């Protein structure tokens, strides 16, 4: 418990204060992402953190148990993270099958590729999705671990 001598701010109120501060930067960040148009390659990491921050808001607002009850999908976070990593690794190392060097993308540099609007389809996208999944999974796990500290102490 943080109980600063004399001033008596309860821990939960501290957390709540910080929680109330948090939406601002995360919304700003999301906006920045959209405005800057990351669509070209997409940045999995940033997207992942944004989602994780949104989840963290739920944690802050309704507590760990509440959040995990509201979003049961969260309990798959470890699997999501590892799937993400495997996906990223697969996109990085699948060229080995063709005898190419790792982290070479298909279509290869310079070759034409399919586009969906601004979204370019090539294997790098897989890696980005992998990164995204991993970041979401990992950060949610982190929230889970730190968010439930009190229950752990009791047991």
């Amino acid at each position, binding site marked *: 418990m943080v109980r600063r001598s004399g001033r008596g701010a309860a821990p939960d109120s501290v957390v709540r204060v910080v929680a109330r501060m948090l939406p601002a930067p995360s919304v700003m960040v999301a906006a920045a992402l959209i405005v800057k148009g990351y669509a070209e390659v997409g940045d999995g990491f940033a997207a992942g953190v944004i989602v994780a921050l949104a989840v963290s808001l739920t944690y802050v607002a309704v507590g760990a148990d509440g959040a995990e009850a509201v979003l049961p999908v969260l309990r798959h976070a470890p699997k999501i*993270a590892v799937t993400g990593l495997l996906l990223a690794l697969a996109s990085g190392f699948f060229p080995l099958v063709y005898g190419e*060097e790792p982290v070479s993308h298909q279509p290869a540099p310079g070759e034409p590729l399919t586009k969906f609007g601004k979204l370019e389809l090539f294997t790098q996208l897989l890696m980005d999705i992998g990164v995204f999944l991993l970041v979401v999974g990992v950060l949610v796990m982190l929230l889970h671990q730190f968010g439930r500290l009190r229950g752990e102490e009791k047991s």
Partner: protein
Amino acid sequence: MLLSIALLLPWVAGAVLLIANGRNRAVAWLAVSTLVATLVVLAFLAAEVYGNGNVRVVTGHWPEGIGIVLEADPLGVTFALLSVLVVTAAAAYESVGGVRTRTFPGLVVILAAGLNGLFVTADIFSFYVFFELAMTASYALSAYGGKRRQLRAALVFTAVNLLGSFIFVLSVAGAYRVTGTLAMEQIAERMLEVNPNAVLLIATGFFIAFSVKLGLFPFHFWLPTVYAGARPSVAAILSGAVANIGAYGLLRFGAGLFPQQLEQAGLALIILGAVSILYGGVLAVSRGDVAEMLAYSAIGQVGYVLVALGVAGPVGLVAAVLYSVVNSLNKALLFLASGVRGALVAGAFAIGSLSVAGVPPAAGFVGKLELFRTGILADSTALIVLLVAGSALSLVYMFQVYQRCFWRADPAKAKASPLPQRLIAAGLAVLVLAGALWPEPLLALSGQAVESLTSSSPGAS
């Protein structure tokens, strides 16, 4: 191909194992078999490297330096083989005894992946990330066991080594700033034209980072707490595999990237090494706790590597490589053996003790022989006296503990540990014996490793 597989195999398997329940025997043995498979792949890679020269991969099919250069050379594969071997032995040892934490197998396999990566990369930043991968895994591992001692060990280990890692990053940034590249080969070339002051400062940063990892005097304070606190298998991994990062780093960065600075700092290195030898040796004498004695012994033993590095020259570097290899095997063997009891283990511990003291028929003797050659080439009586004093000290501290724990105790009274655990220790001991009875592979290996190291450094051209 082999190189990529050596990297990928433990990486993928480790990722999956991380979220599996490692207390399940099947999971633990899956981890061990992954490690064994990695070892086999590495062995093939090593055969390739020793037979046909370096294996080189540039990621993404880009020109070198733009993509990350991975290069398996004799020095790298030697350390990779050695480290994965130690990790495998420790993992098998723990799997036999029953894994205590769910994440142990996954962490160990990922650690192997990180080590593999950093030993084969020829790019300093990718060295850093692999290094962090290995270190993060070992931070998590150091708390393995979860008791008070282990926790304290983990905290000390993590805090001190994190500091070391950040010092390393500062130097990486510096190296980029003054050379405009991250590929080791190009850095080595361009460093020659950079202001010596800046280069020496950067080199000092690298030196400090690796010394912290190795636990050289005076950066060693963390080491006894950690090695004595951690469980035997973890201590074996930390001292036999993770500490190799320090030795390898000193060799690769010192002799490979900063040969001139290495020469400049020769005397300083020798002095630091000498102090390490004496300090570690003397303090190991009155410890009482086997693991703590081994920890101080480790401080002393890495001193030899530093001394050899300080003397440099082909002989000095060969001695440094050889001694690092032998020392890593010794430490793995001794830490694993210290955790079990029984007839085979006593023998294994004795062989380890002889090896530490450099007495035939254990591999340490080949290392000592090379060190003496180094000392004589350096034409330094003081150095030779120091080496002898170090050997004498190690005989005293190893054998007093050996007698108390393994010779004096009646084996009938002490309950013998599971046979497979003892067999693992014995297997390592056989390896140490073989290294002395047929020293040629060790010598040739170290010779080639040094050749690959110096031929790539700008001083050679």
